């Protein structure tokens, strides 16, 4: 979708979180990306690598953990993993479900060289 602007948000947030002299020591930025967030991993990784190329964050790489779409069923109580775009309970097929995960798009952790 708009991975370059997301990459820019990530770089800005890291800039707020890490003191400027330490930015070039950032090696890994761990992201949690839900399957419903609309993010294409490869595109975000590529955008970020281009964005930080000549900045203090140039040594940082994104490590993306995809979060599955999980839902609990209001009818039978089961928790099931949903395929992208199929919003019904994996157990009883009811559409009366509550999403538990899948919309995530956040920075989880960063790893910095000592």
């Amino acid at each position, binding site marked *: *979708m708009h991975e370059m602007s997301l990459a820019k948000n990530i770089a800005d947030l890291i800039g707020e979180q890490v003191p400027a002299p330490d930015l070039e020591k950032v090696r890994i930025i761990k992201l949690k990306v839900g399957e419903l967030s609309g993010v294409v991993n490869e595109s975000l990784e590529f955008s970020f690598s281009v964005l930080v190329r000549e900045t203090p964050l140039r040594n940082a790489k994104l490590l993306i953990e995809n979060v599955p779409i999980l839902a609990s069923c209001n009818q039978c109580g089961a928790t099931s993993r949903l395929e992208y775009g*199929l919003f019904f309970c994996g157990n009883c097929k009811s559409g009366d479900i509550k999403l538990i995960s899948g919309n995530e798009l956040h*920075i*989880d952790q960063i790893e910095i060289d000592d």
Partner: protein
Amino acid sequence: MSVITVERKVLEKNDEIASSLRAVLGEHKIFCFNLVSSPGSGKTTLLEKTIEQLKGKVSMAVIEGDVQTDLDAQRIARLGVPAVQIVTRGGCHLDAPLVRDALAKMDIGKISLLVIENVGNLVCPANYDLGEDAKVVVISTTEGDDKPLKYPAMFRNASVLVINKIDLLPYVNCNLGELKNNALSINPGIKIFETSCTTGEGIGAWSDWILKNIKK
């Protein structure tokens, strides 16, 4: 190597601004919906017909989002409704900071309805909170009845679906029942209206829904 826990949302700035927009709109008792669709579904025409229908009943303003030109804002302004155009110059969606800046150019003390017409795109606008009360997704019958299945996130996040151009049903390969079933399979709670901006069919029911949501 040391590990720092961050746990911050990538879109946190957008979401913070959207929350403060929602609070401001709430204080002023303004009902706001975010109109989303693919390009060419008839969002602006639907808005024009809605404005005619609501004339004298509610005081409103419109924020128009487009990749280029202020043609849509001109169309709305011609009907006597204040309209601010956001030109994204390639940007695929509106975000909360853009809406905040547009709102700053408006006299919101005088309105009770704000419509945000998003950039025509069924993908990206699904994930950006603009501080609206509801997302309204428009689909036209010419787009085919499988659209909800192809763009599930948008149909899941919307609370209302307007099926537009129903006067064209005899001429296009679109099964209305199938279209509704597909939308309901993605979002069982979605409220559905059927409209034609050419014949005027359904514009009344859709406009009544808006009036019902105006905050007292």
